[in-house]
């Protein structure tokens, strides 16, 4: 009897590399086009650098900001806020989502507040949160947690509600307890939906952190943007900070995508 199952045979390496190349080159091409168009607009319009600096100026400022140590403390502060806030918000949302899915009473009691909290823009809440929780890390965590919470909680609830009831009956026939039902059937079955929402949530967490920094902080990329535009009037630095923010957002999104692929990709 042959030992290897047909599905277990791995993809041959060259094909894999070719696939990687074919996914990467459109990204590189579109980036190149973006930079060229940007440069063209600068050349044609003749905007001064304090309105729209060219890509070369921004790139140069970006490198210099990293080299002279301006960038790192701000990046570190924002990353801590984003990662901690996301972890906190997603974990609470997971627990609450499961509770909402399993208890219609909990949903009826809590959902008006959840929706109201979501309908009020975090931007409007930020000054209040800064007033209550100060200008330190805590207020940013509250804001990022809030902003991550809603989409993940709703996705968890919907995902678990839509788990095939026949699977649950199967598990019950093998005497699964409710904890076993949650951890071994419901959450794994809803994982694609939950992880999809987390992927959105991680980019929202970046927004939450910046909003929090604007409401009051002494470090972070949001602060750097404000300083660069205000007291320093260093518009290329402001663009460099925006670039850094975009890089963080895209990286986190890709990391979540990889986690998702690793966890649910093989279905």
């Amino acid at each position: 009897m042959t030992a290897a199952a047909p599905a277990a045979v791995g993809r041959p390496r060259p094909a894999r590399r070719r696939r990687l190349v074919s996914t990467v080159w459109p990204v590189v091409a579109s980036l190149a086009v973006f930079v060229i168009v940007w440069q063209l607009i600068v050349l044609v319009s003749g905007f001064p650098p304090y309105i729209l600096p060219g890509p070369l100026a921004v790139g140069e400022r970006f490198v210099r900001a990293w080299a002279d140590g301006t960038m790192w403390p701000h990046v570190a502060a924002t990353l801590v806020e984003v990662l901690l806030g996301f972890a906190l918000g997603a974990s609470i949302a997971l627990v609450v989502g499961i509770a909402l899915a399993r208890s219609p009473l909990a949903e009826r009691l809590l959902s008006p507040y959840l929706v109201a909290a979501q309908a009020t823009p975090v931007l409007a809440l930020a000054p209040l949160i800064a007033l209550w929780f100060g200008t330190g890390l805590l207020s940013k965590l509250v804001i990022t947690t809030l902003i991550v919470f809603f989409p993940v909680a709703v996705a968890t609830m919907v995902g678990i509600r839509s788990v095939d009831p026949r699977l649950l009956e199967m598990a019950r026939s093998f005497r699964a307890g409710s904890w076993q039902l949650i951890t071994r059937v419901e959450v794994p079955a809803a994982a694609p939906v939950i992880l999809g929402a987390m992927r959105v949530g991680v980019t929202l967490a970046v927004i939450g952190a910046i909003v929090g920094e604007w409401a009051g902080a002494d470090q972070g990329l949001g602060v750097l943007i404000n300083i660069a535009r205000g007291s320093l009037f260093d518009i290329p630095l402001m663009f460099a900070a925006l670039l850094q923010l975009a890089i963080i957002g895209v990286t986190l999104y890709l990391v979540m995508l990889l986690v998702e692929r690793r966890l649910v990709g093989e279905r």
Partner: protein
Amino acid sequence: MNPFRESATMTAMPSAHAPGTGSSIDVSGVTLAFRGARTTRVLDGIDLEVRPREVVALIGPNGCGKSTLLRVLAGLIPADSGTVAIDGGAVRGPDPRVGLVFQEPRLLAWRTAEENVRFPMELAGWSGERQSQRAADLLGLVGLREYARSRPGTLSGGTRQRVSIARALALEPSLLLLDEPFSALDALTRERFNVELLRLWERTGTTIIMVTHSIPEAVFLADRVIVLSPRPARVLADLRVDLPRPRRLTDLDSAFVSSLAADVRAYLVDLTDDAIAMEEARTAIPAGLTPRDRPKRYAETEPGTPAWFDPFAPEDEA
């Protein structure tokens, strides 16, 4: 892949599949109603006794409550009144002595075939080593050892159902309940699965209660065929199948099986939804609007007369 070759290797090794004793089941006076906007009586005083190692087929018209009865036996739905006892002990909730196979395989898509078979053992808290040992044995038993690492999405419908049968046998149940397990399979695969099920039954020594829609399948597999009435279900008939074992597919063509199948059908023929609906439709149309019953007319038709002649036309015009 040949399941029978697989079985040959299994006989060579002494394993946990020595025929067991099987459980006896005693169902008495089980009634059940689904309460909602309108109360539906589903089971109406079901009495049923099954001896250890017996194979019993439940057959009845669509929606008569066969599957519900099976779920009551499995302890998934509590009965309103009456008792279900396995080996003399009353059933209250899902029982470890019972293995349940559903109409659909109901596998967990994110787990491999082997992990699906291990699922009940994980729930029961078996040690990892015992799990892998038992899972390997079971996959061998259903002839799927080489598919252990495949995910359900890559398996055919029949193969998935094999995995689900292996899973149902995981905790060494003494009673195997099957709810139309092969109804999604094509006719040929289905016949082969029936033979395999009997082979599994010989090996594992469980009692089997199986819901089916197929009269030949019921007769081929069972020692007794229980015919249920339309909802609310009652036991209409309890027919013995005195066909020697081991049974072969060719038995299906024997006169004995055909005549027994005819007996079963006689109980069912007026009970199907179609038969009832047609009877109602026939009586609902006022007399005089229907064509008169004149089978003679067809017999008298000259050769060459088109088959689509108008039966409503007055006789002499034809």
